[in-house]
C-alpha cells in the first residue's frame, strides 16, 4: 500500500482516519456501542473496529436495532459474524416495543417501521447508558448528512441541532458531554459508496449475500422493486415478476427496494457502482422521499 515516496492511497488515508476515530472514542468514553444493521456500511465499520484494536478484542458491544422486518439472509449474516468475531450483540427490538405498547404501529397494509426505530434506539441508549454511539452514515449519502460532524452531539432527548453544531477542526475531537447526553460518532464520514465497495474488495470484508445478484419475486411500487411476500405484499394492480436483482442498501425490508442487476461478484458490483448515475438512497429508499428535508427531520429526532 505504501510507495517509497511515502504516499498513501486514498483508501489507506480513509482507513487511517477511521482507525484514529475508533481509538479516540475507546480512550475517552466509558460506554461506546457500535450500531450494526448487517448492511455493508456497518460491516465495513465493524471491520475497521476489529482492525483498530487488534490483536485485542473490540472494547465495546454492537447493537442491532431490529425492526422485525428483516431479510433472513441478513439475520443469518449478523449471527455468523457475531459468532466468528466473539463480539457482544445487543438487540433493540421494534417488535418488542410495539408488543409492550411503547410505540404504536401505523395500521397500513405494509407498515414501514423505519421511523419506529427511533424510540427503541433511544430507549436502549438510555437503558445501557451508552455515551458514544457509532453509526455508519456517510456524508456523501444525503444533503443533511453532508453537514454532520464526525463527533455529533445529542442532547438528553437524543436530538440533533444542525444549526448549532460544535466546530470540528483538524482531527481534534471534542466528545465531552453531560450525563444523559451522548455523542453519535461517524467513522465513515468521508467515505463514498465507491470507497466502501473498493474496501470490501481489498480488505475482504464479508457482507450479506443479497448485495449480489440473485433471483427474487418482486413487484414495482413507487419506482422501486419490492420483494413479494416477504414483508411487502403486492396490491391487485401490482404484478409480481421473477427477476435478477440485488440490493444496494439494506434497511427495514418494507421500504428497501432492490435494483435490477446481474452483478454477481464484487468486481461486477464495483463496475456497476462506479458507472451508476443514481444515488443509492434515491434508487432504493422510500424513507427519504417523504419531503425535501426528510432525513434532516428524522435526524433531529434522534435517527441514525
Amino acid at each position, binding site marked *: 500500500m505504501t510507495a517509497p515516496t511515502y504516499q498513501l492511497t486514498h483508501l489507506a488515508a480513509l482507513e487511517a482516519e477511521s482507525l484514529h476515530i475508533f*481509538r*479516540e472514542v475507546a480512550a475517552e468514553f466509558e460506554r461506546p456501542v457500535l450500531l450494526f444493521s448487517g448492511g455493508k456500511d456497518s460491516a465495513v465499520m465493524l471491520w475497521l473496529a476489529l482492525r483498530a484494536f487488534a490483536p485485542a478484542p473490540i472494547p465495546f458491544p454492537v447493537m442491532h436495532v431490529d425492526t422485525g422486518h428483516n431479510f433472513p439472509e441478513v439475520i443469518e449474516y449478523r449471527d455468523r459474524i457475531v459468532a466468528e468475531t466473539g463480539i457482544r450483540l445487543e438487540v433493540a427490538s421494534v417488535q418488542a416495543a410495539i408488543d409492550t405498547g411503547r410505540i404504536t404501529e401505523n395500521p397500513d397494509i405494509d407498515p414501514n417501521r423505519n421511523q419506529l426505530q427511533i424510540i427503541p434506539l433511544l430507549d436502549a441508549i438510555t437503558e445501557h447508558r451508552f455515551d458514544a454511539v457509532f453509526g455508519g452514515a456517510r456524508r456523501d449519502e444525503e444533503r443533511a448528512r453532508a453537514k454532520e460532524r464526525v463527533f455529533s452531539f445529542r442532547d438528553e432527548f437524543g436530538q440533533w441541532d444542525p444549526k448549532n453544531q460544535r466546530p470540528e477542526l483538524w482531527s481534534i475531537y471534542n466528545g465531552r458531554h453531560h450525563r444523559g447526553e451522548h455523542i453519535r460518532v461517524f467513522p465513515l464520514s468521508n467515505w463514498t459508496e465507491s470507497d466502501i465497495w473498493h474496501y470490501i474488495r481489498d480488505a475482504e470484508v464479508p457482507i450479506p449475500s443479497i448485495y449480489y445478484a440473485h433471483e427474487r419475486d418482486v413487484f414495482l411500487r413507487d419506482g422501486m422493486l419490492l420483494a413479494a411476500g416477504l414483508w411487502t405484499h403486492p396490491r391487485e394492480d401490482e404484478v409480481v415478476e421473477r427477476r435478477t436483482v440485488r440490493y444496494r442498501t439494506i434497511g427495514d425490508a418494507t421500504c428497501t427496494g432492490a435494483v435490477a442487476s446481474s452483478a454477481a461478484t464484487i468486481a461486477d458490483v464495483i463496475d456497476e457502482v462506479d458507472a451508476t448515475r443514481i444515488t443509492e438512497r434515491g434508487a432504493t429508499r422510500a424513507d427519504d422521499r417523504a419531503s425535501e*428535508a426528510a432525513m434532516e427531520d428524522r435526524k433531529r429526532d434522534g435517527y441514525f
Partner: protein
Amino acid sequence: MDLLRLATAGSVDDGKSTLIGRLLYDSKSIFEDQLTHVEDVSRRRGLGQADLALLTDGLRAEREQGITIDVAYRYFSTPRRRFVLADTPGHPQYTRNMVTGASTANLALVLVDARNGVLEQTRRHAFLATLLRVPHIVLCVNKMDLVDHSQERFNEIRDEFGAFAAKLDVGDLSFIPVSALNGDNIVSRSMSMPWYEGPSLLHHLEEVHIASDRNLVDVRFPVQYVIRPRDDKHHDYRGYAGQVAGGVLAVGDTVEVLPSGMQSTISHIDTPEGPVDEAFAPMSVVIRLADNIDVSRGDLICRPQNQPVMTQTVEAVVCWMSGTPRLQAGGRYLLKHTHRWSKAIVRDLKYRIDVNTMHREEGVQALGLNDIGRVTLRLAQPIFADEYRRNRTTGSFILVDEATNNTVGAGIITNAG
C-alpha cells in the same frame, strides 16, 4: 490514487455554488436523482434555471434563507485523485466555518468576480487560508465571460492579489481565469481565452504536488491508545496506537518517550495490513518498543535529538467560535492538544486581528464570535508542542467551555515555551 482535501471560500455572488456544481457535474459526481431534485425545487420556486446552489445547501434553514450556514462536505473523484471538498460560507459572520474547513485542507480555492476584482472578503479568505497554513492557494477569477475574457483584466487582478499575497506567507499561489457558468477552464482549457496558457482548474487540482507538504523530518507520534490484549496468545503484547503526526518512524530506530524521557528502540510497527518497516503521516499504526517502559495515552514518541517543546505556557493565535462566553484575560477553559486535556487560563490577550485589513488592534478587552486574536495561555499540565508552521498536529489545539462542553476556540501555536 491519492486524496486531496480542498476548501472553497467565496460568497454566492462570486458564483461559488455554480463552480462547485460545475466541478461535481463535469466529474460526473452529481447523480441524476440529485439533479432532478434540484430542478424540481427550482421550478417550484419559479426559478428560470436549475439553481446548483441547492445541491450544497443541505439544511432546511439554508434553503429557506438562500444562504450557506455551515461547512458542507462534497466528494468527487477523477481517475487521478479523490477529492474531499469542504464548502464554506464566505461571509465574516462565518469565519469560524472557514477556519474549520481550512484546518485540514491541502488547497484553498478563493473566488473573485472578474468584474469586482479583489475585495475585502478576498483578502480575508486568503488571510485565513494562510493563517491555517493551507499549503496551496488557487485564486479563481470567475465570470470572465462578463469581462469579455479580457487578459488585461485578469492580469490586473492577478497583480493586485499577488502584491497583497506577498505580505502573507503563502506557500504556492496559482491564478486561473474561469467561467463557471460556461465551464471555461474548469475541466478543459477554454477556446475563449487562448492567451491563458496554464492548466484548467480540474487539471491543476489533479496535478498539484502535495506529497512534499508533509513534514517527513521531525518524528512526532502522539500516543492515542494502549493496546494490551491480556490473553494467553498475546500475553506480552503491549502496543502504542496512534496516527503519525510527522517524520518517518522505522523499526530499529531509537526513540524517546515524553514526558518520561525514557529511551527505547522500535521493535515492531503493526498496521491493519500487517507489520511494516516504516510509518509516516498520516498512517494509523501500532508501535511496539523493545523495552518495557511506561507509556500511556497523551505521551509523545519522538527522536532523542529532535523533540517538541514540553511547556505549560503557550503563545497562540486563537479563532474564537462562541458568542458567549467571550474570550477574556483571566478566562478559564479546557484545552485539548493531541490526546491531552488540560485546564487553561488566558494570561494575556495581546491584540485582535482585523481579518479584513490584518491590522492589530491592541487594548481590546475580549474576543467575540468569529474574532481572531493573539493570546498567552497558561496550562495546568504540560503539552508537547511545535509551532503550527512546523506541524499542524502538534501545533494546534481547541478550547472547550467547561460549563457547556462546547468547543469555543481553535488555537494555532506561534511560539511554544
